[in-house]
């Protein structure tokens, strides 16, 4: 059982939890993830680690309340417990002095991106950070990221804040030479960023969170095609060369259980699980 010690709403339906998990807090590194099981009947879901504090014996992570499990998770309060957390899983990010790094974080993944930016700056990099969301209300950590980064941009899909879409990146890439790009966010965003950086020959690392069950190499549901070879997101990743990933296949594989996920969420709401009576 893992105790929630802090619970913060970052944006509508996006929450940041701080949880006591000493054995994970001691070992976690940027880029790694955990697997959460919320209760005895729960599924195993992977979430990227957004922070850790060995002294406080805690880890932090952010999630989007989209399915039954994350909605249930969102109802938990400080002092409540999560049934099981396994981690840290996956390979840590490669952190060293690359030179100039472009970081692009989207949606809920802005949270682990902040950890990434911190680590890259500590390693001596000059970091340009872009954070993005669908609409301006879903943006968070703007001040934190801005304060850390050498340059900072905001983008939204609808243009309600900052640039509209990510096309402006092409201009930035034309004007400035980067040594590396790190993209964390929705698959479509990572796909687009990778396409842009490929044109400019900038090595690009993307963080993939395909569907997982065990998260430690046993089931193979997280398989992705990278450079035409089968890789497992959990043990070979979660970070891969964005120029080699077959994003279209990944998008299809992420939707494999969409009808079941919707059913599960809907039934739970109808049964009053969300305390809203199905409204």
């Amino acid at each position, binding site marked *: 059982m893992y105790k929630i010690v802090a619970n913060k709403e970052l944006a509508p339906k996006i929450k940041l939890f701080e949880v006591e998990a000493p*054995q*994970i807090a001691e*070992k976690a590194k940027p880029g790694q993830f955990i*697997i959460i*099981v919320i209760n005895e*009947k*729960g*599924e*195993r879901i992977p979430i990227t680690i957004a922070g850790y504090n060995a002294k406080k014996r805690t880890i932090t992570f952010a999630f989007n309340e989209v399915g*039954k*499990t994350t909605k249930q998770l969102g109802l938990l309060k400080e002092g409540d417990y999560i*049934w*099981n*957390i*396994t*981690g*840290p*899983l996956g390979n840590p990010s490669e952190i060293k002095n690359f030179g100039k790094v472009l970081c692009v974080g989207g949606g809920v993944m802005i949270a682990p991106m902040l950890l990434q930016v911190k680590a890259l700056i500590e390693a001596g990099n000059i970091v340009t950070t872009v954070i993005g969301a669908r609409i301006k209300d879903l943006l968070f950590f703007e001040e934190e990221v801005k304060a850390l980064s050498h340059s900072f941009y905001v983008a939204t899909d609808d243009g309600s804040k900052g640039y509209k879409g990510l096309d402006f990146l092409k201009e930035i890439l034309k004007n400035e030479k980067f040594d590396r790009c790190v993209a964390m966010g929705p698959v479509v965003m990572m796909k687009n960023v990778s396409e842009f950086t490929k044109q400019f020959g900038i090595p690009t690392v993307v963080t993939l969170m395909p569907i997982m*069950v*065990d998260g*430690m*190499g*046993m*089931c*193979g*549901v997280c*398989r*992705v*095609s990278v450079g035409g070879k*089968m890789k497992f997101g959990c*043990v070979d990743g979660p970070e891969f060369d964005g120029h080699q990933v077959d994003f279209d*296949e990944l998008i*299809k*594989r992420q939707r*494999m*259980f969409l009808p*079941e*996920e919707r*059913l*599960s969420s809907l*039934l*739970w709401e109808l049964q009053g699980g969300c305390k809203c009576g199905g409204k």
Partner: protein
Amino acid sequence: MAESKPKPKIKKEAVPIPKQKPEVRRRNFNEVALGYTEEQAREEANRCLQCPKPQCIQGCPVEIEIPAFIKLLREGKFEEAIAKIKEKNSLPAICGRVCPQEEQCQKFCVVGKVGEPVSIGRLERYLADWERAKGIKVPEKAPSTGRKVAVIGAGPAGLTVAADLAKLGHKVVIFEALHLPGGVLVYGIPEFRLPKSIVQAEVDYIKKLGVDLKLGYLIGRTFTIPELLKERGFDAVFIGSGAGLPQFMSLPGENLGGIYSANEFLIRVNLMKAYSFPEYDTPIRIGKHVAVIGGGNVAMDSARSALRLGAEEVCIVYRRSREELPARKEEIENAEEEGIICKFLAAPTRFIGDEKGWVKQMECICMELGAPDESGRRRPVPVKGSEFVMDTDTVIIAIGRTPNPIIQRTTDGLAVTRWGTIVADENGKTSIESVYAGGDIVTGEATVISAMGAGKKAARAIHEFLMNKK
């Protein structure tokens, strides 16, 4: 054996075990075999010749004194009979169900030379179930030795090592990577062959021995073996991490939706209880026409699970012939009784998907058997131009598992074979002093009981090592 005098009128046929009818059980996840009644158990026990030089024991990887427990059973001394088994085997309810007895103890049974061998496994199961129903007694433990052992993996090997060492007075902590204990007993073997409540009861017994169980600890990530030994105060480590990585075939279309590794399929169904979706959160999607690739016990388990999940038709596609099927005969019979179809001498060549990226067809090629390969079995050779296409919307790939590499990668100095298994001697000793290993991580994919046998030997060796230390 000529000098032994068999009792008169030994029946050639074993007492059959009552089972759920095939037409009923093919649609439920309840246990197939129902177990002997007391009367049936005593009747079957009476078939044992009580050989003065018993042959059966040599077939048992954990050396249970089989004639002795059978004698106690037929005398009605059930308490003593189960205690006799438990001297050697801490998990009798499991072994009575999933051991391939026909390849082990029963293969050597003298009665088997004239008729069906004594059903040793069913008798073991009877006694274990009898004990569980009345409440399991925890045996006396030796006084504490002050030594501490870390066991990696709560599967058959790890649970055996833990139980044996705990009884000898050592402090044991099991680190299990999944959120439930049991290893392959909970994620691999289906409920209808091994009810999970039985695994839980056996695990509870081991906990009552004072064993500490840490769930969700992936050794190699959460802690490494050097950390366990140097920083966390363990005097010895046993690695029983199993053969957990699925093999794929590198065929076009293998990443289409609806194509599962047997591991994924069975983990969803068994560990995550997807057959009770949406009460349980993990989904599984089963189409109408399921194809299972492979011919081992895992293939049978997958096929029979698919049927129970509502598939209209389940077809096992195996590249050799019926004679070479590696699955247990009993399980093949059970599967065919339930209506599983076997397509022999065929192997897939590619998978064809629909516009949504879901598998809809599988192209196969016919095989013929050529000269024997290194395994001694005749090698399947593709027949040129014999490709055919079968409609299928769910494919389960059950062609084997390889060792999980994470411990090998994070433990300096641990010798590994070219297949990725850990090098260990017959007592489980690895290339690192104080580190032992056993089960599938050493042998490659094998049986529950052979893992337990390896665990037993390793426990003895670890005990000796700990008692001689300093």
